[in-house]
């Protein structure tokens, strides 16, 4: 527990990604099984609650703490600290002899290893037993250890490490690529002893075929102006890039799971799609969309369906979802990924012909003879739900990750508006000494006929380090008010902001929200009074979302 507790604590404070990585690498290399596997579980999907016996942690802690602390003092402490596990860890009386800090710590008894702790909890038959066990463990740990234990048994510790970063560290620790870990990840279980054995070269690769697991996805590069001259139109096919979310549907022997691009299991939110695929055996790649009468609905509608654990039938009929497929990774047990795109495409078309699944269609190819022609086709298209074009190399196999030269995304030239800087906030990590997050607004007429600025978005990218230094100085020199890490500035700097679209939003004071705003240019030269107005922003909304004039 001591090594794990130190790991968690360090990860919580380290800000640099690379340093977090090397901290985890060191831990995975130096910690024995099964402890490192349980730590990996805590840092990724959480320690499975079923293994621990679904502990009613809150109730157990209430029972344990009421024996030594006044409820009023507990409540005041909890309110101040803001986290139950941390509060209990800090409050817990030191029952073991306090250690002389000048001495090196005594070796930890094996019963305090993560593996032993999991084992002990899984052996408890009643909550009363689990509660006693928890109390005994807390008695034997120091503050840091108590905190880590409670975070461990409570599920996700939230120490600023994504599951992806933990897996990257795991792969790096043993000289593998993270894609290899992702490939088997959903087919292995905590404490991942077989996974570690394989990565260390001491065992076979875990057998994951036949399981409905996530396969790492192939990603596209944004196309740059310089790319065109090295590309031949003949080598590529084009597809529309749909404004939904990329999903992978993995169907095996009646079990179906739907994954996001990052491998998060989002099956729960889309029961109807799951149902459709129970009678199929495949791994398919496509876009999840809300569609009504064959028309793609705005992204906002899809958002109503995301991040939900349960979906009511009403939600299902109000926001009907649909999958538009563009690739087939497995047909039955056959792995199609080594095949060139064109062949996979034939297999996908044949598969759809054969299986005719409901709520699923094919993402059409856009035929073109030259890139110029493609450009013209695209310029003439203003359909809802199209975010851009995908260019895919015909002979390319399906490779995990983002490999240069194979797939490109070609988005519309962004929209831009001249906005006025209103607030600046300190950045995170390396940028913490700079005001690097900018909230900007446009002019709006008040009831009394004055012009006021109303915030329309926030951006923290799109400028060079040099520009950041200038912006930072400007913010410091023009501060009118400070609230914690935020400074309000006088209306004096125009930012040309690029974004992909605007949407109506009830959550924003201005009534609109920008998609992917970034600083396009800093208009040091432009007077703030000449920046854009809210009317100019509203004109960019889709017709149906525009406020009445």
């Amino acid at each position, binding site marked *: 527990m001591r090594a794990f507790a130190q790991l968690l604590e360090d990860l*919580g*404070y*380290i*800000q640099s990604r690379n340093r977090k990585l090397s901290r985890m690498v060191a831990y995975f290399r130096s910690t024995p099984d099964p402890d490192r596997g349980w730590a990996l579980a805590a840092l990724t999907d959480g320690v499975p609650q079923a293994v621990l016996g679904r502990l009613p942690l809150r109730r157990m802690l209430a029972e344990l703490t009421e024996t030594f*602390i*006044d409820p*009023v*003092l*507990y409540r*005041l*402490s909890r309110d*101040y*600290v*803001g*986290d139950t596990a*941390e*509060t209990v860890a*800090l*409050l817990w009386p*030191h029952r073991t002899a306090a250690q002389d*800090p*000048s001495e090196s710590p005594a070796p930890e008894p094996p019963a305090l290893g993560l593996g032993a702790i999991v084992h002990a909890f899984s052996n408890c038959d009643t909550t009363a037993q689990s509660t006693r066990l928890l109390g005994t463990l807390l008695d034997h740990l120091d*503050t840091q250890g108590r905190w880590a234990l409670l975070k461990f048994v409570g599920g996700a510790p939230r120490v600023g490490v994504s599951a992806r970063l933990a897996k990257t560290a795991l792969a790096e620790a043993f000289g593998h690529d993270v894609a290899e870990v992702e490939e088997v990840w959903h087919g292995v279980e905590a404490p991942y002893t077989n996974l570690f054995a394989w990565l260390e070269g001491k065992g076979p690769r875990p057998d994951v075929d036949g399981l409905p697991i996530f396969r790492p996805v192939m990603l596209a590069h944004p196309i740059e102006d310089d790319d065109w001259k090295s590309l031949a139109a003949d080598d590529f096919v084009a597809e529309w890039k749909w404004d939904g979310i990329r999903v992978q549907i993995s169907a095996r022997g009646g079990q179906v799971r739907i994954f996001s691009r990052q491998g998060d299991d989002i099956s729960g939110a889309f029961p109807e799609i799951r149902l459709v695929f129970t009678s199929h055996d495949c791994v398919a790649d496509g876009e999840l969309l809300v569609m009504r009468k064959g028309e793609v609905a705005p992204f906002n509608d899809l958002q109503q369906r995301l991040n939900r654990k349960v979906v009511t039938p009403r939600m299902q009929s109000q926001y009907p979802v649909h999958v538009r497929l563009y690739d087939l990774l497995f047909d039955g047990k056959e792995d199609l990924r080594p095949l060139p795109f064109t062949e996979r495409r034939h297999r996908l078309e044949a598969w759809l012909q054969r299986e005719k699944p409901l709520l699923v269609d094919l993402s059409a190819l856009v035929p073109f003879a030259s890139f110029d022609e493609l450009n013209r086709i695209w310029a003439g298209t203003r359909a809802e739900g199209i975010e851009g074009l995908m260019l895919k190399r015909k002979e390319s196999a399906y490779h995990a990750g983002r490999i240069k030269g194979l797939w490109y995304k070609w988005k519309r030239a962004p929209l831009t508006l001249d906005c006025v800087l209103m607030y600046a906030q*300190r950045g*995170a990590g390396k940028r*913490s*000494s700079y005001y690097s997050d900018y909230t900007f607004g446009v002019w709006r007429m008040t009831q009394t006929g004055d012009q006021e600025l109303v915030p329309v978005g926030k951006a923290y990218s799109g400028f060079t380090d040099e520009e950041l230094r200038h912006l*930072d100085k400007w913010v410091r020199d023009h501060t009118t008010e400070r609230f914690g890490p935020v400074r309000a500035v006088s209306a004096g700097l125009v930012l040309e902001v690029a974004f992909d679209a605007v949407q109506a939003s009830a959550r924003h004071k201005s009534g609109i929200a920008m998609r992917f705003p970034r600083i396009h240019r800093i208009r040091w030269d432009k007077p703030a009074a000449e920046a854009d107005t809210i009317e100019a922003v509203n004109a960019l909304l889709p017709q149906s979302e525009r406020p009445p004039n």
Partner: protein
Amino acid sequence: MTALRRAAAPFHTWLYPDDRGLYCAAGGFHIDPHQPVERAVITHGHSDHARAGHGAVLATPETIAVMHARLGKESAGSFQPLPYGETITLSEVQVRLVPAGHILGSAQVVIEKQGCRAVVSGDYKRAHDPTCRPFELVPCDLFVTEATFALPVFQHEPAEHEARKLLHSLEEQPERAHLVGAYGLGKCQRMIKLVREAGYEKPIYLHGAMVSLCELYEACGVALGPLVYVADAERGTLAGELVMCPPSALRERWSRRFADPVTAFASGWMRIKGRARQQGVELPLVVSDHADWPELVATIRETGAGEVWITHGRDDALGHYLSTHGVKARALSIVGWDEEAE
């Protein structure tokens, strides 16, 4: 209980908060007032306790030296030093200053009137601090206490432990400068002294704001070892070196000159992870110059005081604790005494 004691007027008739701070009517003076007054007794030099503009100031010689350094020699009409342990009569009361263990020169104000004793402790701690005289317990009838860390979650680890943590990080990451944010009066010098005691002998670099107070400590006999003002250091990134600075400088432009700095912060608030993260601190050092919860509770009990007044901090938690343990507690909520100094 003697006849004399029974005859004494209740404390609140001659010691009470007014619009300028805590006022001792029987002695005609305020203690750490936040507004200019005619006569002030100052417990210690932190800015929320020692302010400029009073007519006459009574304090320990060290506190007067601090006030001279920070506020100027003209910051009060007159300064009267009262060394620890000496008694002075002010109108109807006897006044004595006793070490509070908070920072150099910090004192508890012991006030006696007709055999009744009140102790106004200012800020205090019981933990080891090589830069000042340790807290002395004075049995009393009324104890006036701070409550900065008055929540049971504040049980600070020994500060020596935190100093070793800092040195360990320096050893592990010699390619990075270590910036330690610490309050300039007291905390900074204590941190320096703690790492010296832990065996660190290299020069320690100082932000400009820390220089004069470190010199003052040295002049008062607190040896801090080799110190270098950062601006005087050769242009370099101070990789592997220890730099002391005010907490605010950790996130200012000043910090950019250093090699990929580790930002540390020495404060009792660092016990709470959320507070440390909020400040973007990579190496939190739980070092407090205020009593933690067990110290507060133990000190109050040891004074034997039947009545406790709480000046500033978490008076809700401490008041609740005392009233459920048979001690009469009252929250004064004195304005202007804040947590700035930690």
